[in-house]
């Protein structure tokens, strides 16, 4: 089967999935409560008639199936509607926040992946050495410590006490953070990334290291490694060409999953660092029952995960000849 045909078939399978997920999300959202009631609860002077007028205005009085069909009609035209708060188009909100989240997530995912390569290989080669235990301990620390705790501690130490790094936001503008006395937009952006990216990298690192270590230990025990040694291949080449190539498959899966969950990935970290990203916006939208924004972000996450799954499956077939995309 051709690759194009394969992708087309997988894309067609995604359609019912996307519709199913949107229906479930829609129903759960409506079961959660009434956004108008929530928004006006603190206002004693508002009357029930005025509330009803608001509901009428936002189309919330129509039967739920009708509202869903209206939403779906907009969705297939790539329009997520307007936020209930402020009336900004959801498409616009998402596109401004999207890049900030992707930036933070990609940096953390790639850092975790790249750091885990030497760490995982070394742990496997020097199994049960002091270094192996140290790497494992750091990894387990990263998994066990909650991100909000670590985030707050880092802010307290590096921002509040030492004043080295900014504590919140993705940009300092109009006040740019001085990096060794230099004020520059790019440096300002990078310096804002340091703390949240550290927290997310530490949280993701452990899985990568443990997976690679286990994979390497398994592969290094195989007879084809012995056979390679017996044919006189250098240890270095055995390590990278034979062992790593075979041990890295689970890491590729993890990478695919992480990229899929990227958007949904870091609501807590984004909240702790006041990061202007989709994760924080998602939490805020859910708390305020901002229906169009909730649906918009949910659908973006769904599509990202489905596409990442497809790419992971294709990467698998490319890496491992035993797996075919048919």
């Amino acid at each position, binding site marked *: 089967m051709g690759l194009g045909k394969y992708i087309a078939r997988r894309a067609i399978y995604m359609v019912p999935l996307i519709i199913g997920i949107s229906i479930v999300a829609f129903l759960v959202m409506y079961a959660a409560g009434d956004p108008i009631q929530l928004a006006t609860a603190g206002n004693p002077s508002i009357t029930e008639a005025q509330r009803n007028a608001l509901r009428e205005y936002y189309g919330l009085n129509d039967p739920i199936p009708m509202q869903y069909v209206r939403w779906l009609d907009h969705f297939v035209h790539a329009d997520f509607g307007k936020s209930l708060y402020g009336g900004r188009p959801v498409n616009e909100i998402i596109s401004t926040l999207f890049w900030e989240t992707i930036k933070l997530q990609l940096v953390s995912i790639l850092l975790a992946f790249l750091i885990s390569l030497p760490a995982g290989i070394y742990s496997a080669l020097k199994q*049960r*050495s*002091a270094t192996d*235990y140290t790497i494992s301990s750091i990894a387990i620390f990263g998994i066990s410590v909650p991100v909000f705790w670590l985030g707050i501690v880092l802010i307290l130490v590096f921002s509040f006490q030492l004043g080295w790094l900014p504590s919140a936001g993705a940009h300092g503008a109009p006040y740019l953070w001085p990096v060794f006395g230099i004020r520059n937009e790019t440096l300002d952006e990078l310096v804002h990334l340091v703390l949240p990216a550290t927290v997310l990298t530490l949280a993701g690192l452990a899985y990568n290291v443990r997976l690679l270590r286990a994979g390497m230990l398994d592969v290094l025990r*195989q*007879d*084809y490694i*012995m*056979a*390679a*040694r*017996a*044919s*006189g*291949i250098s240890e270095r080449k055995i390590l990278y060409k*034979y062992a790593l*190539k*075979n041990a890295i498959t689970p890491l590729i899966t993890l990478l695919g999953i992480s990229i899929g969950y990227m958007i949904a990935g870091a609501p807590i970290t984004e909240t702790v660092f006041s990061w202007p990203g989709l994760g924080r916006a998602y939490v805020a939208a859910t708390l305020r029952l901002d229906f169009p924004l909730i649906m918009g972000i949910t659908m973006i996450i769904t599509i990202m995960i489905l596409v990442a799954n497809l790419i992971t499956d294709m990467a698998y077939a490319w*890496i*491992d*000849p*035993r797996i075919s995309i048919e």
Partner: protein
Amino acid sequence: MIDMAQPLLEVKDLVKYFPVYSRGILMKKVVGQVHAVDHINFAINECETVGLVGESGCGKTTTGKLILYLERPTSGEVLFQGRDAIKTFSKGSGEEKMRLRRAMQMVFQNPYSSLDPRMTVFDIISEPFKIHKHVSSNEWKERVYKLLELVGLEPYHAERYPHEFSGGQRQRICIARALAVNPTFIIADEPVSSLDVSIRAQILNLIMDLQNKLGMSYLYISHDLSSVRQISQRVMVMYLGEIVESATTEKLFDRPVHPYTRALMSAVPIPDPKRKMNIILLPGEVPSPVNPPSGCRFHPRCQYATSKCSQEKPVLAQVDVDHYVSCHYYHKFI
């Protein structure tokens, strides 16, 4: 042995101890040693197949790996064509190492784990050409096809991946890979133990054919006595890291002397329903190689053992031409 010719391979006083670590939380501590191979001596001549038999875990595979320096020996010597192989592998120049790697090869026990799943058969068999550069790249294809033919596979198999083959076919690929460097000596580590009986005979015949065609020498490691008998000219019996008996195949199978060898032989099925089999059952389990028994290592399971056996270590004594036994009371069993 009144053989003045230099043997192809000589193993002298070879020892391998593996450290045993305590299960400490932070620091590891050596708490003992596995006596995997304990002071063994033997020689293999050109064009000869020597069988090495013994129970699982008695050190057979480790012996093979030590000869190829895939495991580092604790002490002892391996002489290949009169030259110190261990020294060459550990300290020799790149060129010397590669020459020795070309001379000695190994076929591993498990054909399912000895082929890289990501490489095609062509890549696997031509890999040695790439490393040793003893075949120019425009001849690779021809040579790979020739090797495939030699082991009874077809040229079109070259483009396939290992998972598309059966166990027997994989073992043939392993043999072809070992032959790619034109070795003179191959260590065959239980090459048929994971194969169906119907395929065993094919692989054994292939191994013997190659000896006739290419003048190969083998160390044939196995726990399957009937295949050892079929293929080897000489057989050594190993027990807990030591060689307890060594003789020509005929003598060993006709007149085994060591009580352990006799117990092993009695377990070989005889294809005659009328003949009553007299199986000698050994009491107990194989002792731990971490704490091998004192004196003769076989004494706790030997029905003839005396107090001498638990105190004094027997030496390998000659009982006949080409027949050596390590037992205090061998004269009782001749």
